[in-house]
């Protein structure tokens, strides 16, 4: 299957909530088991979850309960041992590496706890990165979209800096700008404030809330911070690989 036929061309974020309740991603009976020669670890046990367009969902739970594994499966970075992942109504388990990569590139933006910026690239080059893997986007368009994304996160004055010259909060803003540059429908944030102090954490949280509120970006966030989780529209709790609320 040609990856470009899997979905429509990326469009600007919706300006209204008219599209709410359309599922962006649906997980059905997801199981993830890590198997070694001697031990079998169940990371996810029969998880059913639907994320709707425009939602801001937070996932909480103790360390090792399977939150990050769930996020990896939602982000098509990992395969479930059993169950079905559907993106916009299409099951993806039969997709090739190329098709999955194209889906990730067009539909999903990632924000990580440790930012995962490339230290040898400038802020602008880091933000442009997802567009490098998108055929048909010219260099000029890449620049423009990267500048626009950096403007959104308030870092347009830092385009030529390198990650090492930025504070933790600024780095996370760059990571968010990188996720935004591809104009994804879904942002998966894995403990985005986990490495930041409370003030910077608050800034990042406000930024994510603003993106969801103003641009209608669907966000799924894994967090340990109850206060931040309560600010989102839906809170899902996990324990020992199962959804408990």
């Amino acid at each position, binding site marked *: 299957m040609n990856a470009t036929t899997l979905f429509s061309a990326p469009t600007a974020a919706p300006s209204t909530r008219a599209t709410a309740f359309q599922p962006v991603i649906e997980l059905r009976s997801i199981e993830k088991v890590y198997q070694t020669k001697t031990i079998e670890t169940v990371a996810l046990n029969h998880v059913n979850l639907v994320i709707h367009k425009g939602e801001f969902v937070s996932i909480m739970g103790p360390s090792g309960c399977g939150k*990050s*594994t769930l996020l*990896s499966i939602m*982000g098509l*970075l*990992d395969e479930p041992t059993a169950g079905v992942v559907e993106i916009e109504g299409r099951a993806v388990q039969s997709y090739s*590496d*190329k098709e999955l*990569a*194209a889906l*990730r*590139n*067009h539909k999903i933006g*990632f924000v*990580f706890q*440790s930012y*995962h910026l*490339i230290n*040898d*690239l400038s802020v602008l*080059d880091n933000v442009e*990165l*997802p567009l*490098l*893997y*998108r055929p048909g986007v010219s*260099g000029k368009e890449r620049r423009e979209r990267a500048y626009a994304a950096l403007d959104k996160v308030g870092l347009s004055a830092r385009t030529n800096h390198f990650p090492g010259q930025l504070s933790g909060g600024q780095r996370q803003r760059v990571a968010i700008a*990188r996720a935004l540059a*591809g104009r994804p429908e879904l942002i998966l944030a894995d403990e985005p404030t986990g490495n930041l102090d409370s003030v910077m954490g608050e800034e990042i949280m406000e930024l994510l809330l603003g993106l969801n509120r103003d641009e209608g970006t669907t966000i799924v966030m894994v967090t340990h911070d109850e206060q931040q989780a309560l600010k989102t529209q839906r809170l899902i709790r996990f324990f020992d690989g199962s959804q408990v609320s």
Partner: protein
Amino acid sequence: MIRHLFTLIWNRKRANFLLVAEIFFAFVVLFVLGSLLVDNNRKYTAPLGFTYEHVWQIDMDPNGQPISRQDATFQRLMQHLKAMPGVRSVAATRSNTPFSFSDSSTEFKAGSKSTSSDIYSGGDDMQDVLSLELAEGRWFTPRDEVATRPPLVISQEAREALFANEPALGKIVRTQDDQEFQVVGVLATPYRGRGEFQELKPAIFRRSESLVDPKDSTNFDRPRLLIRVQPTATAELEQRITKEVAAVTGGWKTTVTTLPEQRATRMKLALAPMGGMVLVCGFLIFNVALGLFGVLWYNISQRRAEIGLRRAIGATGSRISAQFLGEVMVVTTFGLAFGLLVAAQFPLLGVMGIQLPVYLASMGLATILIYVLTAICAFYPSRLAAGVRPAVALREE
């Protein structure tokens, strides 16, 4: 993407410096060795100007016979050998026979032009013995014995050096001591008496049928002959020749060798240092390859998080592999750029006295080899990078 790779490598220039330096030195070593090999190959494939198969060399020791009697004995011996079954032609010669380690050269002048030329001595049958081809004129004959000026047969290189585009036949040529010679023939090819690895150089043959220089009786040679034998000749002919020499000369000692044997000895001596250089160079390149392989492997293990990130934002496994391969190619390009800059100085400064086309061919060969080497070294680590599981790599940090 290419611009991205160049940006990445440029921004990592300090980290990549040693890799660039390693590639630079590997290139320079390959270029120098390549220049020597290509130059030797060019010489090897150029025409020798003579054939050596079925040609025997007979060195004789007069065993105390007075010099005044040696010449007559030598002339008589040649007549006897020519008459022997199995012998096709016999020519007197001097010490610098084909493939020998004896050189003789002198300065010749013709009008305003002059050249340093290898000088060879050949009897009247030498043309047949060595299958020398003439482009114009003739070879030596017995009538040249009474010629006003001693005759010369010159090679194409000598003709070009002394006469440029003008006719050479009949022209007078002088040595530095003003001895005059007359050109009677021009060879159709170069003549490279020292063998396949001799550089092209003007060559001139002068007639030699006697051991003693007629104009200077103190100048004489040990008797030496070149004989073209029939292709069917065996060791039995060698024995007969030895006996014939002993019978005709009254006890001269004889050593018979063949030109193919002489050539083999010469080749061994020419190829041994080249083989040594290739071996040392091969060892160096192998070490460079191991180094590159190790560095690339280490790089990939250090950049697992980056690989995970790139996979997360839309890179396929093959794209990751291509990126790492591309990075190595960019680093190689930087190393080669510096290497080519240094290599370009060789022809400009005339470092090894090799012709420009040889340098250019060596630059091309060394460039291709280095690209192939680095691509091979990068292939497996790049495949490893492609196999990194993004979910795991992103969680590691």
